[in-house]
């Protein structure tokens, strides 16, 4: 599929310690001018990358318009007497006014939902979910990673594309994504989805859960962005091209 005609194909058996199927997929790139070879791994399948950026856009719109909607009644208590929580400047919100924000919110929620369903469907049916699904065997690996990041402990040996802390973060992010949709539907249709609203304590509380879910997602996004900055260009570029050059786990 690469038009391998002139290219020399060599078989290298890379010793694989555990589940590292990505290691087997590594490709060596040969630079004829310098004679250097680098390894690269196709980490992110097309659908995952597409969904990542679709979600980036729709999440941005959902949060911006959501903040504008919240400005109409920035409280979770009674209307009388109204005690507002801290509100944010209009410049951080999208839509200009409540009606405009609702148009954005009720339009992009379908893109947000569609992206989520496409992503989950792809991950499940392709088996690619194993890359990021946090399971029991990852539990013991979380603390060493936290120690590494926050207290400069030794870097634990990484076996797959994602370390246990990443798996935990991405699994929680997906759960938060699902919750954002469920709480959103409870706020939007508290009667037709009365069972959803009931599970959340009714419309009034569903609105609070929807809001808290947003902060959970924002907390993930903050951590995610810090990690993107820390891990440099090759890592960032891989979310566009799918390919990551010289991933750490190949040299271990």
């Amino acid at each position, binding site marked *: 599929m690469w038009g391998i005609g*002139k*290219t020399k194909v060599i078989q290298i058996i890379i010793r694989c310690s555990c589940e590292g199927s990505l290691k087997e997929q590594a490709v*060596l790139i040969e630079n004829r001018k310098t004679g250097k070879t680098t390894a690269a791994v196709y980490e992110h399948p097309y659908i995952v990358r*597409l969904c990542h950026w679709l979600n980036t856009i729709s999440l941005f719109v959902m949060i911006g318009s959501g903040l504008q909607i919240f400005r*109409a*009644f920035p409280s979770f208590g009674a209307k009388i007497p109204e005690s507002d929580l801290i509100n944010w400047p209009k410049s951080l919100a999208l839509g200009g006014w409540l009606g405009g924000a609702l148009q954005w919110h009720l339009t992009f929620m379908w893109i947000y939902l569609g992206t989520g369903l496409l992503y989950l469907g792809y991950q499940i049916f392709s088996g690619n979910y194993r890359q990021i699904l946090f399971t029991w065997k990852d539990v013991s690996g979380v603390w060493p990673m936290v120690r590494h990041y926050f207290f400069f402990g030794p870097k634990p040996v990484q076996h797959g594309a994602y370390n246990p802390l990443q798996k935990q973060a991405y699994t929680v992010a997906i759960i938060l994504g699902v919750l954002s949709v469920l709480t959103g539907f409870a706020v939007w*249709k*508290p009667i037709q989805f009365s069972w959803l609203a009931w599970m959340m304590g009714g*419309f009034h509380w569903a609105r609070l859960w929807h809001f808290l879910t947003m902060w959970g997602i924002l907390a993930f996004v903050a951590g995610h962005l810090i990690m993107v900055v820390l891990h440099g260009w090759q890592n960032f570029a891989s979310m566009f091209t799918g390919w990551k050059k010289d991933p750490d786990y190949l040299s271990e």
Partner: protein
Amino acid sequence: MSLQLENHKFKSATRRELLKLTPLIALGAFAVPKLQEPLLKSGLGFSDWISKGLFRRHHMATTFNDNQLTPLDKFYVNTYDVDDPEVDLEHWTLKVGGAVQRAGDYTLANIQALPKFRQNTRHVCVEGWDAIGRYGGTRLSDFLHMVGADTSARFITVRCADDYYESLDMATALHPQSLLCYEMYDQPLTREHGAPLRLSIPTKIGYKQAKYLTSLNVTNILKHVGYWEDQGYSDYYSL
């Protein structure tokens, strides 16, 4: 198994992968001022279309016990233009027209002669606040039958003394909890809450609960959807 590739082959492969993301640029249409409004309108229309599909005539709005009621003095009142439309309660009638067999002016006594229903339901404002109120009145469906309305028509529209106006799809109008409401908290409607007659449609958002009704029409064609809808709110907003 591992492949060895020349650098330029790898570069064209990554470029190809990058180009596969170009469909994302289509979302940029939302940033084009001329396209933004029609796109958002159709997005909102799509949401309304889904909403209509989700509506079930036999799905009841949750009802509440008396001890869960928001006290009447803590029940917020949104006024949109005039605080007091100065309705002459003595000579008030509801003018009924459109696709009905018995068009004409109906007095409050005509309406109150129909069976009375009381329900404690949640009022949800589009702004996000909610309150649980006790509403009393006659079923809109009973009234529509009394005036001989063509219930195969698509909409009912109402006009109000404060120049507010609203419309309802027929399925919602026929919902058993949809009331022509003349009482709140077992007392005749106060001026703030729309005396002498308002809509109480617990399956709809607050701005559909028009107050100070003066006329009601049954129709297939909507010239205007409603005061807020015509400024950009959802036409259908059901809960």
